């Protein structure tokens, strides 16, 4: 089984539009939306939720006002400045439990936190595992790990060839959680200086975790000088540029219609994405 994760560093480069199209093109796959705090893939795939599960994660300290003697030890020791006036700020609390261990009057308990939900859904293109992290919640990495694990389980059970996941932007916790142990990272970039800068950082994260990478330049014709610069950079890093997708408003039109672009239209963008999937699907890395 091959697990392909689509990342970009910079947001808004087209990850979800590409994964939505891969959903149409790939057979025998499970789809995963690893962008658990601003998920969009469902807007293209229109899932019907089959299973819904709660995501309990992390803990938050709660002070019992009756027992608290206001000695102030917890406030003094908390390194996250989460306790003020003998009250816990649930947003700042990192759930370490230090306060609950040291409180001399045992007034602090740690409560499990309902941090979100995850789903297994049917779409007309196959199974989708996705999630919704609660607003202002932590532990997105852990939720990503759960959706990936579930997708792997389903793919194994059904004997499928691929897991295709739509990754989050950035390079931090949810990205690392989406990436580690995957077989291939497809990095979607755009020919802007920001896109190049962010590509370099996310490529280094792939290296750090030993995941082979391929690059796709989206909207390559917005700035062809920058496109050449990306090509040179990739050459110097021995990373293949697997596709050049032109800028075309048809991608947004497809999104407005709630459809993957390869299903909505048969133009240049769709041909490039089809060729890209051909290439990605043939790679048997590791």
């Amino acid at each position, binding site marked *: 089984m091959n697990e392909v994760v689509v990342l*970009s*560093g*910079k*947001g*808004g*480069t087209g990850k*979800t539009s590409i994964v939505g199209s891969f959903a149409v093109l790939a057979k025998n796959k499970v789809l995963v939306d690893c962008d658990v*705090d*601003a998920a*969009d893939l469902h*807007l293209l795939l229109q899932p019907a939720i089959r299973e819904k599960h709660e995501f309990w994660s992390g*803990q938050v300290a709660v002070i019992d006002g009756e027992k608290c003697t206001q000695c102030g030890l917890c406030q003094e*020791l908390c*390194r*996250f400045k989460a306790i003020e006036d003998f009250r816990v700020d649930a*947003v700042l609390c*990192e*759930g*370490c*439990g*230090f306060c609950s*261990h*040291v409180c001399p009057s045992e007034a602090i308990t740690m409560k499990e936190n309902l941090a979100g939900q995850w789903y297994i859904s049917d779409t007309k293109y196959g199974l989708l595992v996705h999630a919704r*992290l609660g*607003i*202002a*919640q*932590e532990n*997105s*990495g852990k939720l990503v790990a759960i959706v990936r694990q579930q997708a792997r389980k389903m793919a194994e059970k059904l004997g499928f060839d691929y897991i295709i996941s739509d990754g*989050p*932007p*950035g*390079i*931090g*916790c*949810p*990205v*690392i*959680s989406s990436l580690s142990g995957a077989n291939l990272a497809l990095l979607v970039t*755009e*020919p*802007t*200086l*920001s896109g190049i*800068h*962010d590509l370099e*950082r996310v490529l280094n*994260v792939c290296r*750090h*975790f030993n995941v082979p990478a391929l690059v796709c330049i989206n909207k390559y014709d*917005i*700035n062809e000088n*920058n496109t050449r610069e990306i090509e040179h950079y990739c050459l110097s890093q021995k990373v293949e540029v697997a596709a050049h997708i032109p800028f075309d*408003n048809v991608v*947004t*039109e497809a*999104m*407005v219609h*709630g459809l993957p672009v390869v299903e909505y239209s048969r133009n240049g963008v769709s041909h490039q994405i089809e060729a890209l999937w051909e290439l990605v699907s043939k790679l048997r890395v590791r």
Partner: protein
Amino acid sequence: MIISIASGKGGTGKTLVATSLALSLKDRERVQLVDCDVEEPNDHIFLKPVIKRSETVSIMVPRVNEDKCTFCGKCADVCAYNAIAVLPTNVLVFPHLCHGCGACSYLCPEKAISELGREIGVVEYGHSNGIAFVQGRLNIGETMPTPVIRKVKETAHHDGIVIVDISPGTSCPVVESIRDSDFCLLVTEPTPFGLNDLILAVETAKELEVHFGVVINRAGVGDVKVEEYCLREGIPVLLTIPLDIEIARLNSRGITLVEGMPQWQEPFLAFFDRVQKIIHERSSSLKR
């Protein structure tokens, strides 16, 4: 006054708004631009600041003195992150899992645990064109941006106009960045993805009790549902930037909108005045 710039969805134009707002205001106000998108900071590409000073950001991780350790297992019991494992004759520490809470060293009955700083990122200070500049940068392979963001915010000015550029999303790094803002600008694009993520960003701002308004970028690209949503919810749309290939080209070359198209300075100033007016109205209505 702290104005933060968030979005939910990535690539909607936060950096464009942050840099052009800072440049438009610099002759009128004391301005500081603070890039809290420590995973992928991009403001420096546009402002090309001169960096004068940098400071590393560390997390305090435990170091066990095995001569003193009795392998009682207390440290592993209290660690909420499974960053310490105690075996019969040695102790394993997993620094990448450690949040640096300090519980293990404080609670060790033998006082066998000391703490050691582990670098996870840097904060850089400089200036550009009369604008004070601060940015954070998370090191490659590190998972926790929040301590870097905290350090960036701690060292930012607290007078003048502070413009805070934020990473996309709605989870911990965004929350840490938006907290304590006087106003939050939510930059979106009029597409289904833009709307979906705008709604999440609105919920985040509401949860944090921060006043907010919307900037619509690439107006004309998709549909009218973002505008309909803002109208329905009574959310002010404070600035609209049209879909324009010239703007996209400038942006691709790392040129700010107000430098590439100086005619945009006036709309940005008017936009800032609207933000300021809303902040004053809200704070005086609170006082009343």
